[in-house]
């Protein structure tokens, strides 16, 4: 019921908001999908990744490159998601046997490789200058329609992730998070489960990246850089690790805060940093976790 009301409210936004704010709303929706995909690993499988910005951005690059090569936009988006999936398979194979800080550092290094490639492979990626897309044509040129598209896709993806974490597979993941050794002793294939979760999470991040390509119509190495991964993780943490909707809350809070604070001070990055520290100290379960605790 709440979810339906929320969807109606979100769907009605374009009728109320001026175009700039609609752009911000679109961005929030896209980044909430990224944050949720991070949450899938960090919150349910107990593996905190720092490569999701790179997976997200790889999809963005592929969409823009493919569309420039004449591939229809919808097919380019699918290619982007597929590329993100392929990348996650590679990353997953390398990373799933590690945990804790090793997983963190390994995924960080893998993400940096992608960033390095995007920066140096000038002929394909445009290097530092990035690539300018030409995606916002015809049907997509209208910001309202683009918003509804993002909302629709975002809702489907959110539902898919919600189903995934509530499935037996999701339960197994949570058990692995609590005690990998016990799950292994019970006969569960821990690496296989983690690998599947990693790839699923990468696919969702890739879908967010494809939406970002439609929205931004531009990609440069900053889109695959470490701060992007950190931002996704931070959104997941601020919203609440271990709850899918936390991603939406985190994306909303961070992007809205950035917009609001940067309108008043040059030191908005400091304010964002302090806010993040405060949230981690006083609401370690994230804002959604705080709300749930209060309501109990």
């Amino acid at each position, binding site marked *: 019921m709440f979810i339906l009301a929320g969807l109606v409210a979100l769907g009605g936004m374009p009728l109320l908001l001026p175009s700039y704010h609609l*752009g911000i709303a679109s961005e929030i929706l896209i980044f909430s999908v990224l944050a949720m995909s991070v949450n899938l690993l960090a919150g349910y499988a107990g593996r905190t990744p720092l490569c999701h910005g790179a997976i997200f951005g790889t999809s963005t690059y592929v969409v823009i490159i493919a569309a420039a090569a004449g591939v229809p936009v919808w097919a380019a988006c699918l290619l982007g998601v597929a590329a993100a999936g392929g990348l996650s398979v590679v990353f997953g194979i390398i990373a799933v046997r590690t945990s804790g800080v090793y997983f963190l550092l390994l995924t960080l290094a893998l993400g940096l490789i992608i960033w390095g490639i995007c920066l*140096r492979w*000038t002929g394909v990626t445009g290097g530092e200058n990035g690539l300018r*897309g030409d995606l916002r044509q015809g049907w997509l040129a209208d910001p309202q329609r683009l918003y509804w598209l993002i909302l629709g896709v975002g809702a489907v993806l959110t539902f898919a992730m919600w189903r995934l974490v509530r499935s037996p597979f999701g339960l197994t993941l949570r058990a692995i998070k609590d005690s990998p050794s016990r799950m292994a002793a019970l006969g569960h294939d821990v690496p296989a489960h983690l690998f599947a979760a990693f790839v699923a999470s990468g696919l969702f991040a890739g879908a967010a990246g494809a939406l970002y390509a439609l929205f931004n*119509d531009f990609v440069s190495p900053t889109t695959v850089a470490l701060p992007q991964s950190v931002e996704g993780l931070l959104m997941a943490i601020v919203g609440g690790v271990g709850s899918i909707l936390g991603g939406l809350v985190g994306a909303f809070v961070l992007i809205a805060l950035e917009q609001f604070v*940067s309108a008043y001070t040059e030191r*908005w990055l400091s304010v964002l940093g302090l806010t993040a520290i405060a949230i981690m100290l006083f609401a370690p379960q994230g804002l959604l976790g705080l709300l749930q605790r209060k309501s109990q």
Partner: protein
Amino acid sequence: MKRRIVLATLAAPAMLRAQSTSGPIKIGLMAPLTGVAASGGREIVEGFQMYFETINGRIGGRAVEVTVEDDASNPDTALQKARRLVEQGNVHFLFGNLLANTGLAVANYVRGTGTPYFIPVIAADDLTQRSRLPNVVRVAGYSASQFSRPLADWAYKQGYRRIATISQDYTFGHEQCGGFAQKFTSLGGRVLQQFWHPLNTSDFSPYMGQLANAGVDAVFAMETGADATRLIQAYASFGLKGRIPLMGAMNASDQSVIRTMGAEAEGIVSAAHFAEGSTNAITQAFVADYDRRFQKLPSLYGFSHFSGAMWVAEALKTIGADAENRERLLAAVRATTLTGSPLGAPVSLDAYGNPVYDAFIRRVVRRPDGKLWNAPIETYPRVDQFWGFEPEAYMRQPAYSRAFQGPR
């Protein structure tokens, strides 16, 4: 970051003309106030605001309202800020940005909105070449490879025949070195080696050894910011200074670099449209005024935005300050020949939206008061972005990259 600076709102109503009832001219200025390019970004804002202060914040009877936004040296942020300025702030036109990727991102956005966008610092060649847009104009700016060509010509005339280049490994560097290499090679010189190092290289010693043994007559260095400082210091401390002449891109010996340096920077030769050490009276008046306001000599960034603002203001005056009419504004900007700018010489745009300048070959020398500055030693008249090449034929060759530095 949004700081609204409303300039000179208190003017006698009698001065107002009819069109001023439509409110102020709204300008969105984007500059990197945080991130890697922050120091240059501040000088962008200084130079831009200084111009509007000198004209009391009014153009043709209309007040000017400048909204400054921080692009954070990040193209995604720049895009977001451009959207905010255009869609929420309803600015009449956009100005600024420093890093090429931020400028390219914003250019792609204004391609859809049609908002005029002026880029006095963004040098990416293709913005006024292969992928130029009618509403993106490089007022008082230059394309990256524009001035390395006259420098290559000058170098050849000095008798240098074998050159090495060292540059930051990104597009801005590829383009400046490409301009140099292609011109120098076409004259009959040889580029023996090209070194590309990552941005923010902390230790230049490996390159110094290789440069010393490269057997070249001179070195061309394309560096910005802290890399420029470190390279110039390493060049002196490894004993190359005085042994192998050092030429630089204009940003390598820009005020933003040399104002904190000493003898190690003296003697570097570069080419640019602006030389703060010029004896021209208008240039000197500007330099003295800038020094008085900000206690430093103007850098490329401050100069460009002062002059870019002047360019658009002069154009607006010819159309009755009708900033709302984009086509008229753009046509006026393209038709304007800017006189009275700190350049001290008239300047106009080519058919592609890039200015044609008298280029100075400059040398870093010490002023009587001990400060370093770039003094002109030779002038190349009428240097455009294709200098010596036929535009259409030139644009059929690929853009410069690490792999393409002119046909070999």
